[in-house]
């Protein structure tokens, strides 16, 4: 253990530290948590999958309107946000790495950095939303179809997808930030040792998943018809 090792946990009778009553040993518990998290992420894929399917149907039906509407999104802010989010995935991975080698302080530092980057993403996202609010591009009857000429109604569908997809993604980010706050508190308490940091690893999986959703959303929403 390094100098910044964890504060001692109270010993629990009969069970190894952190082992729930119904498991035989820690590896079994870890295996269950990992499989459970991956299974959960599969449900998330199916959840967003319904939206991606809908998006594919309408983009196929109204390609011109989707291209036109996409060009009203702020690519600079979107690109910045992509970089911010990928950066947060890096710091998340580094936090887990620090837990694996048992370094306490940098682990907390990376977790806080991840939270700050996540919050930055949501900040930039809300600036974008505000622009759309000002431009009357919110979905619903108040949508200003005149911006897109004849393609107006179909562009409205694009913006419905834009808001539902990025909105649900943002919701997952907010949940992720909550998880990060919880996990940082546990890390600060010294819950994670090189041998046992399942909760941290699971939160990391979730965080990477939410990033990955954005990696698909960004080109599908922002980059239509920009390749040449």
């Amino acid at each position, binding site marked *: 253990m390094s100098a910044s090792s964890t504060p001692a946990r109270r010993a629990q009778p009969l069970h190894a530290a952190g082992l729930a009553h119904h498991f035989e040993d820690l590896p079994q518990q870890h295996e269950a948590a990992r499989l459970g998290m991956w299974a959960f992420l599969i449900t998330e894929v199916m959840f967003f999958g319904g939206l991606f399917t809908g998006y594919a149907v309408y983009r196929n039906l109204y390609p011109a309107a989707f291209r036109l509407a996409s060009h009203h999104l702020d690519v600079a802010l979107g690109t910045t946000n992509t970089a911010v989010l990928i950066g947060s995935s890096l710091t998340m991975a580094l936090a887990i790495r620090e837990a694996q080698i048992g370094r306490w302080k940098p682990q907390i530092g990376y977790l806080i950095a991840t939270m700050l980057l996540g919050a930055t993403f949501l900040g930039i996202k809300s600036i974008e939303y505000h622009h759309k609010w000002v431009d009357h591009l919110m*979905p*619903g009857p108040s949508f200003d179809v005149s911006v897109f000429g004849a393609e107006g109604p179909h562009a409205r569908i694009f913006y419905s997808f834009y808001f*539902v997809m990025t909105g649900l993604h943002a919701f997952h980010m907010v949940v992720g930030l909550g998880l990060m706050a919880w996990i940082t508190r546990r890390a600060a308490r010294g819950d994670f040792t090189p041998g046992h940091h399942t909760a941290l690893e699971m939160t990391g999986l979730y965080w990477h998943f939410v990033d990955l959703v954005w990696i698909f959303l960004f080109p599908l929403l922002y980059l239509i018809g920009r390749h040449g």
Partner: protein
Amino acid sequence: MSTATTTAPARAPENYLNTDYSWKSWLLTIDHKRIAILYLISISFFFFVGGFFAVLMRLELLTPAGDLVQAETYNKLFTMHGLILVFFFLIPGIPGVLGNFLVPMMIGARDLAFPKLNLLSWYIFITGGLFTMYAVAAGGVDTGWTFYTPYSSTYANTHVLAVGIGVFITGFSSILTGLNFIVTIHTMRAPGMTWFRLPLFIWAHYATSIIMLLGTPVIAITVLLLALERLFHIGIFDPAIGGDPILFQHLFWFYSHPAVYIMILPAMGVISEVIACFAKKRVFGYSFVAYSSIAIAILGFFVWGHHMFVSGQSPYAALVFSILSFLVAIPSAIKVFNWTATLYQGAIALKTPMLYALGFIGVFTIGGLTGLFLACLGLDVHVHDTYFVVAHFHYVMVGGTVMAYLAGIHFWWPKMFGRMYPEFLARFAAIVVFCGFNLTFFPQFILGYMGMPRRYHAYAEEFQVLNVLSTAGASILGLGYLIPMCYLVWSLKYGEVARKNPFTARGLEWTTSSPPPTMNFEETPVVTEEAYAYHTAYLNEEDYVVR
């Protein structure tokens, strides 16, 4: 507390029921067995609420005229009947009660992998149920349980939103239960419990869980889009701005067709256990029955279009969906044939669970075969939206799932509560249910074939005789459901005390006391033989001896 120390009655050994009697110990329990009981109580409640709407419908349909309720009320009745029984009884029923209780016990585990998540999923279920019951109390909803757009999104003036939220929420309960089962079956099996020693009940629940995980998120996003459409008019399903209402049907049935397998697969698992026990034979073709569950789970995802043959989908798509729908009948048929082969030369005991199981095989076969009629493109155009369809899915859902549920409840009742149900009365009720069920729904096949459309409160005079028969059957069926309700509650206090293994069944759940201790087993069991080893001699332990 008794003052006398001499006459204290002999206390039952400590088990999961008598370990703590406080409300808190029930409402905050993380014991899978207690959570199963919580599901049992809540699901029974929803069963009788949903059944109540069916009673009103059958009363209205006694006469051709719409005299008991108005058309609008009738629309609400069949909507809430379907909604409550599909989302709050059939889907969570067998997995929530029997699955929760038995999955850990059958594989020799102390609990599900995520006990707190398990409790959470019950609370989510109840929260979804509260939203739905609120909508029911506030005036109901009239879209049909299918919520087809644009009626549900734009035109309906009823409580679509509250019900939508209820369905959305309760879906997460289903997801968490499925996730828990999958992880438990993968990681918590006792030493020696290999995949091909698993009881078929476990295989069935594994397959069900796959569907819960892959299908339920899609209905969640679909209902969410519907809610956003209703709240903010986002237009995705609104044809006025180029949205596609048919897309809603695709997304809806992408979940809701596999969901019928969520309802029937656990039932099939129950039947495999019961048939083997009361024929005292290993299940014929174990691995075929196991794999057929998985095959149903996979194929079930590719047949949703057969609900949309007349909805304006491409005829070529309809052709493919028709063929795939025929294919999914194969694994179901494998099960029926293998159960029948299991009975051959078995030592058949016609106890109550077996009566329900035999009823299941016959009734499910009719339900399944009429499903093939409906998968035929030409025939479906003729009987689409008629009582033929109603009869078909009630043969599968009521004759299949509910009968299997009753079979399972009786079979494992001694294990769950340590008391026997009264055998004679229970057999009588099983026969009442079987007769009442067939009298209710068989006339509906004929009605449908003659052209009586579903979802109307009034009908042409020539349909009356069959409708009266159906209503008469429904009252018999209702009685058949009330009798077990009464004697099962009675048996909790007055039933004969159950032994460890009253039916001389095989399986780990029968090797521990009835009711089981909180940790299920005194020590982790070690499995050394295949499931259903009824053919091996083992009758040396006193508890196994048949009285």
